């Protein structure tokens, strides 16, 4: 699947930041035209979301965390060993509360790292060092759909 901006005749790029999907099965992906900045959203239903999640690929390109071992099993198991789950958000010096960690884990695999990046960038911009659920709500308010 590729997206074309018709007025510019230019391929639209996956927008890798500024997205904050809900922890649900209906998520949206944004694409942006590099020429005119026009952006569109691709909306997926539960099945489409699950399907992409389980292939183990990430939108916006492979991330450091996503290329870790057993990244799908580790995050999809309802009960798994701590060591598996810990592949979660630890990059940068920011603290994540347990609630925030749990919430980001619920974001579908293939957009999780884009969402994480969005939250981190927002926190850094505001000079916030601890990411909690309230901050995630704020981000959602700002960039979510």
């Amino acid at each position, binding site marked *: 699947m590729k997206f*074309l901006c018709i007025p510019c005749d230019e*391929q639209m790029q996956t927008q890798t930041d500024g997205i904050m999907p809900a922890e649900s099965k209906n998520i949206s992906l944004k694409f942006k035209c590099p020429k005119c900045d026009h952006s569109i959203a691709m909306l997926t239903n539960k*099945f489409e979301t699950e399907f992409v999640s389980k*292939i*183990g690929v990430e939108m916006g390109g492979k991330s450091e965390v996503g290329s870790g*071992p*057993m990244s799908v*099993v580790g995050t999809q*198991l309802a009960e798994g060993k701590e*060591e598996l789950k810990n592949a979660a958000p630890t990059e940068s010096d920011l603290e994540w509360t347990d609630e925030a960690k749990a919430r980001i884990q619920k974001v579908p695999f293939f957009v999780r790292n884009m969402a994480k990046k969005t939250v981190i960038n927002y926190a850094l911009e505001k000079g916030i060092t601890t990411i909690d659920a309230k901050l995630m709500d704020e981000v959602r308010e700002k960039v979510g759909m």
Partner: protein
Amino acid sequence: MKTYEDLAGDGGSNIVDQVVSQREKLRGRLDKIKHKISIMSGKGGVGKSSMTANIAGCLADRGFKVGILDADLNGPSMCQLLGIDNKEKLNIDKEGVDPSIGALDIKVMSMDSLLPSPDSPVMWTDDGASAVWVSTMECTALRELLADTNWGELDYLLIDMPPGSDRIDNIRDLIPELEGVVEVTIPSALSQHIVSKSITKNNNLGVKIIGLIENMASYICPHCDEEGALFEGDDVKELSEKKEIPFIGRIPFDPRISKKSQSGKLFFNDFKDSITGKAISQAVDNILKSIPNT
């Protein structure tokens, strides 16, 4: 207006590259493992998993480096059979997860290795997921268990399949060089009926059948070595002739075989010289004979 072909890439996700690198990672693992063999049964409860464990024990006893992939995702039993403590911490590095080490240094990767307690169920986070999605998830899980485990160099990787023949097409796709399948049945008519379906399916998929093992063929009294029948049933040898597959072993039941390995040892290695131990060893001879270059 530009067409699909005019656009290079997929807009920044490089999905094709990601899939290719998944495949390459798997290939890198598999290339270090000389022989891969699946153990299947049509029906549950025919002693397939303990047969897998004891075949592994026999191979390890002969000096081979052996691993077991517990592909029975919903009913994992390999950790128990090989005396692996669930409390062991997982060792994870960038390359993968270290397998659990069981009796005779047999390497094991099982869902049990990943769960926090022996009682934890294998459950996926999507509550209310349909059967189709659970199946897709299991398929992904198999790929990760295979590709993301630090198996190292192995002579044999045994794959303990779930009962039935559901996942064999996944395994064949993941491991095209699979040596083949060992089918385990018991002398009961029902078990043979179902294993016969499994054989047909494998034939249709082009998966080689190494042979048929008749488990629980008779009962051996551990005190006097007296042999008696356990099941009233059809001749398994006849089934193998009808299906034109090799009959590779007739394993008498020894009650000690299903005992949980608390000593960290397997039945085979404790009772190598028992009637059942010798029968397992002979089945292993037949398996090795069927594999070129062994």
